[in-house]
């Protein structure tokens, strides 16, 4: 009787991040970003990422911060044009169908965008609450934008974006009176996924009733702007500290 000899398989231990190559490019991006504080904005399409930038950029500009914006969309440079109108350098990545940005796409864009003096770089990811969460771009933080019209169950249904983000912006709060969505429940659900989320409630339109006098922004938007300013300050301090330590051989 002929015995069929089963070929032995070799086992190779790997123990590596599955997206190791993306991680390496993300690390290069981090070096190129330098002192700039980099925010990777995640959300479903239409939650108001670009509107948020239109509202917050003038506030940060007034505070003397220099900015640059990388826009990611499946098609068109419409969002880049909206940022151009604010007088801030912007580069549009057109993914031609891909549902997320990856580190290589951002790396390619960095040669074509003036980031030399930037204190803050916003990367507006492709509108999609799932796919962009898997790809590190070299950012300092992810910020997820959820508009109230999407419903208060979304942090539970799409947890990865909330788990990986440092900041949650709950946008379109001006529409709450017309919806069944409950602000408290959005917050409770988001915190159940990630208890450390910093949360800002914003509206990009209308003069909100809690708007501080003389400002077109509501408290949440100014809070987010304040968070960015503070983050720029602490990143600079951290880098200077590291530089000094190195200089002293510590």
């Amino acid at each position, binding site marked *: 009787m002929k015995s069929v000899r089963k070929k032995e398989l070799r086992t190779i231990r790997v123990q590596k991040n599955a997206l190791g190559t993306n991680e390496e490019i993300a690390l290069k991006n981090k070096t190129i970003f330098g002192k700039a504080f980099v925010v990777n904005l995640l959300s479903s399409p239409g939650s108001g990422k670009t509107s948020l930038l239109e509202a917050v950029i003038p506030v940060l500009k007034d505070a003397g911060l220099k900015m640059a914006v990388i826009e990611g969309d499946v098609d068109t440079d419409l969002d880049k044009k909206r940022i151009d109108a604010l007088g801030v350098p912007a580069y549009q990545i057109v993914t031609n169908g891909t549902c997320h940005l990856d580190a290589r796409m951002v790396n390619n864009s960095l040669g074509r965008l003036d980031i030399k003096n930037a204190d803050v770089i916003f990367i507006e990811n492709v509108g999609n609450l799932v796919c962009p969460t898997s*790809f590190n771009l070299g950012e300092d933080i992810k910020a997820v934008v959820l508009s109230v019209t999407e419903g208060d169950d979304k942090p539970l249904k799409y947890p990865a974006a909330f788990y990986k983000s440092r900041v949650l912006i709950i946008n379109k709060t001006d529409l709450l009176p017309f919806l069944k969505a409950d602000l408290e429940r959005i917050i409770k659900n988001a915190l159940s996924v990630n208890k450390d989320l910093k949360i800002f409630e914003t509206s990009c339109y209308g003069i909100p009733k809690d708007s501080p006098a003389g400002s077109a922004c509501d408290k949440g938007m100014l809070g987010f702007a304040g968070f960015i300013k503070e983050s720029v300050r602490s990143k600079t301090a951290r880098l200077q500290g590291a530089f000094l330590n190195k200089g002293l051989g510590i």
Partner: protein
Amino acid sequence: MHEFSVAIGIIDTLRENGYLDGVSRVAKIKINLGKYSGIDKNYLSFAFQNVDDKRFNGAEIDFVLNDGDEITIKEIYVD
């Protein structure tokens, strides 16, 4: 939807680190998958059956699920 990109990312990572040198077929890949990784394991398995690198087309993907957000390649079983 992005599982195809992740599959390509896994193959790139394995290749660039020399794990595929002299390998004619990958029979199985053991992956640790966090519940917050944002990856659908069925789509990821499906993606490998369709990648250009034919050595992966018959690969069985063995997922070990856990609580974090990691996607880690633990081991590969190869000819």
